[in-house]
């Protein structure tokens, strides 16, 4: 068996919305201590060393979870104003 790093072996999913499109956005300056990941759908961002309640879909608190519908329904603040011709 090839030695495949665990990171690439299992599919990572977003703790908050369970989307599987995840980008690594940073790695610790001291090599191998942590990585920072971001969900490309809901933009949730986390460090690999955070507690499971912030990093794992199984342990993520239900009250903070998000679905595609929640994201689409997020109200604009502030609303985009109409274009004004001068």
């Amino acid at each position: 068996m090839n030695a495949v790093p665990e990171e690439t072996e299992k599919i990572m999913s977003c703790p908050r919305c369970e989307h599987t499109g995840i980008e690594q956005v940073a790695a610790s300056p001291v090599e191998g201590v942590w990585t920072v990941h971001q969900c490309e759908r809901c933009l949730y961002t986390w460090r690999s060393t955070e507690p499971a309640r912030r990093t794992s879909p199984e342990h993520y608190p239900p009250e903070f979870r998000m679905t595609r519908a929640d994201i689409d329904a997020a109200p604009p603040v502030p609303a985009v104003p109409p274009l004004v011709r001068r």
Partner: protein
Amino acid sequence: MPFDDLRSFLDALDSHGQLLRITEEVQAEPDLAAAANAAGRIGENAPGLYFDNVAGFTDARVALNTLGSWANHAIAMGMDPLTSTKDQVAEFIRRWDDFPVAPERREDAPWRENSVEGDDINLFDLLPLFRLNDGDAGFYLDKAAVVSRDPDEPEDFDKQNVGIYRMQVKGKRRLGIQPVPVHDVALHLRMAEEQGEDLPIAITLGNDPIITLMASTPLRYDQSEYEMAGAIRQSPYPVATAPLTGFDVPWGSEVVLEGVIEGRKRELEGPFGEFTGHYSGGHSMPVVRIDKVSYRTAPVYESLYLGMPWTEVDYLIGPATCVPMYKQLKADFPEVQAVNAMYTHGLLAIISTKKRYGGFAKAVGVRAMTTPHGLGYVKMVIMVDEDVDPFNLPQVMWALSSKFNAAGDLVQLPNMSVVALDPSSSPAGVSDKVVIDATTPVIPDDRGHFSQPVRDLPETPHWVAKLTRMLAAR
């Protein structure tokens, strides 16, 4: 000596024993936020916190809770750390009258030492970013002074705005920003978006304490935060020209980010644990693109923990909320003695006043709701007599318990405007408001039996002095 930058303020905190340097290795999460959260749970004179050994980082310096106690607030104002809250607010009011003090331009800003542009920018590498609360969408910049200009009058110095707005780090050079509609940057953004344009902004991180206080103070649209900072610090405020936008930014900032709020674009932002002690929910908010970063060598990253009050944000915005409301009320009603609007950014305010005639205190309470800040915040006003100190909550509770009769002392106004972050508002941004009149009724309001108050004995002040002396001499 006023502080021109964060570093000199940290040194002053240190010399007063008000800065804890934590040198043992900590985790970025949850240690940094938990420590700052704890600072708000260990008493009124909590120190600032300074970390320089964060796991995985080689070069991180993190300052937290720098303004998170009355002692630190007093040091920021150049006062004795033991000064009472009431006296700190009174001194703030006194200095306010020196406005405007013209800023001093100094172009040798230390943040000119280093810069990075365009796609070479990576905020995750430049700053030791970290999460504050469990439900936060990510890492936030929540103590930065954000500078923007009126797009129709970009040369008008007084309409240049400096404010603190929460920003979610969404990418190497991308932020989400929350411009609350009642704040000046939202006015600037609307003008730009109506023309289909981006709004240039400068975001300054790691600042001297006075500009942080001023950026949190609800000034009028055409009042310059820099000119007010000069008044409050009793010395011209040092500014320098940001290289990309040409905006005036603090001379002493640790880091200056420049770019634009991208016009007519919205994207999911949040939730974020807010000053209300509740999360904000997720909204679709504007997006910032960073085009240039300038920074001091070995920058200190400053952040602020907020959550269930009290936290640093309450100390930071408390006096800054009281003072303009006091000034605005006093201008119309000289009878007003003091304003304590320190509870949840002024959602609740306590006002002491003399009474001109029956019903007067209720009118003052309603007027507080129509001040610029009151429109979006003041949801409850407790009115107390001139001999009750609104900063002394046991006295306020005495007034409420003995003077207030719901039959005639409760004014309820339906469906008024309030900040949408108020979790009790329904729909968000709309709430009933109340004036709770705990003043003694005066003619022609003859309700109750208040003709025989028990007053402190005339000899008591003599004994206060005597006992204090005896205690001190033990």
